[in-house]
């Protein structure tokens, strides 16, 4: 039970930590000052959520690992995030499409987790829900602007959606760990989120004039620790300080 909970919290935390770090890579590079701040804000929201989830995970594990140990001292094989969030930022359209796909999922997931039998998790979910609603609003507006903007922005967004679509299936994969926790009313059945996700995403794609790609085969592996090569590179940069100077603080 405790190990299932640990595993589940790590999945939730890793999705957010990895995406938060990816977004932080935009800091100082976004197309305009206001957007630079907006992306950094979202990055901080996600990293803050990961911090809370890792703290709960460390407690569930009971091995004395705190949030920092879980974030900075695990290797890519131990990460349980979906592949979608570890993909490189690409151009702005890729970043926005990735953010929109994840944020809609995260919002629906958090909404359901607010009713979790695990009261600590339910409390964190309330914060996650509030924040992800804003993330959906931010990235959703950009989906419309890019899709319905210039020919260039439309093409870039369509390309981004085509490229990322095959990574969205993994969001809705359920497994034994999750099913056991669903029975105890701790976790959310990821596959139950899919229909509402499709409805909301397709509605925005439609308004943005973007065609949903027809992809039969979905990539997966992240939840089992099988990651793309991109994650190791990202972790090398993210973890170098704690690896070289263990326990460093400021």
């Amino acid at each position, binding site marked *: 039970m405790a190990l299932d909970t640990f595993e589940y919290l790590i999945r939730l935390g890793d999705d957010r930590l990895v995406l938060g770090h990816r977004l932080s890579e935009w800091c100082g590079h976004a197309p*305009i*000052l*206001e*957007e630079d*701040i*907006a992306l950094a*804000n979202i990055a901080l929201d996600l990293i803050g959520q990961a911090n809370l989830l890792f703290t709960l995970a460390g407690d569930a594990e009971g091995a004395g690992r705190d949030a920092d140990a879980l974030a900075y001292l695990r290797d890519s094989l131990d990460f349980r995030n979906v592949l979608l969030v570890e993909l490189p930022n690409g151009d702005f359209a890729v970043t926005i499409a990735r953010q929109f796909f994840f944020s809609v999922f995260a919002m629906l997931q958090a909404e359901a987790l607010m009713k979790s039998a695990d009261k600590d998790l339910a409390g964190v979910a309330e914060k996650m829900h509030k924040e992800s609603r*804003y993330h959906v*609003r*931010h990235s959703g*507006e950009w989906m419309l*602007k890019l899709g319905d903007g210039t020919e260039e922005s439309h093409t870039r967004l369509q390309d981004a959606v085509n490229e990322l679509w095959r990574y969205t299936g993994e969001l809705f994969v359920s497994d034994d760990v999750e099913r056991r926790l669903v029975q105890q009313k701790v976790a959310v059945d990821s596959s139950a989120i899919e229909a509402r996700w499709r409805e909301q995403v397709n509605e925005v794609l439609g308004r943005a004039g973007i065609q949903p790609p027809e992809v039969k085969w979905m990539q997966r592996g992240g939840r089992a620790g099988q990651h793309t090569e991109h994650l190791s590179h990202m972790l090398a940069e993210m973890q170098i300080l704690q690896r070289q100077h263990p326990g460093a603080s400021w």
Partner: protein
Amino acid sequence: MKKDGSPKADSQWPLWEVFVQPPGGAPHEHAGSVHAVDAEHALQNARDVYARRGEGVNIWVVPTNAITSSTPDDMGPFFDPGNDKPYRHPQFYKVPRGVKM
């Protein structure tokens, strides 16, 4: 600068002025400005730049070019005539005895 010496046109998105209402019902205050392509975008940028640390409970955004401002030339005619008219201030008047404050 352009060749003729005039300032380069702003290559960024249109400018919006941001007014944030602090908690507690105080009036909106001018917080600054943001660039944005439309009103919703301006609201989001204003939120991210000026109201992410609990500064406000409400935000107004107004297109900067919708604001009509007095100019330095107006200084005299607009504001000086008030200087020699102290009776426009309530402090000018003595409160009659017997009025409870």
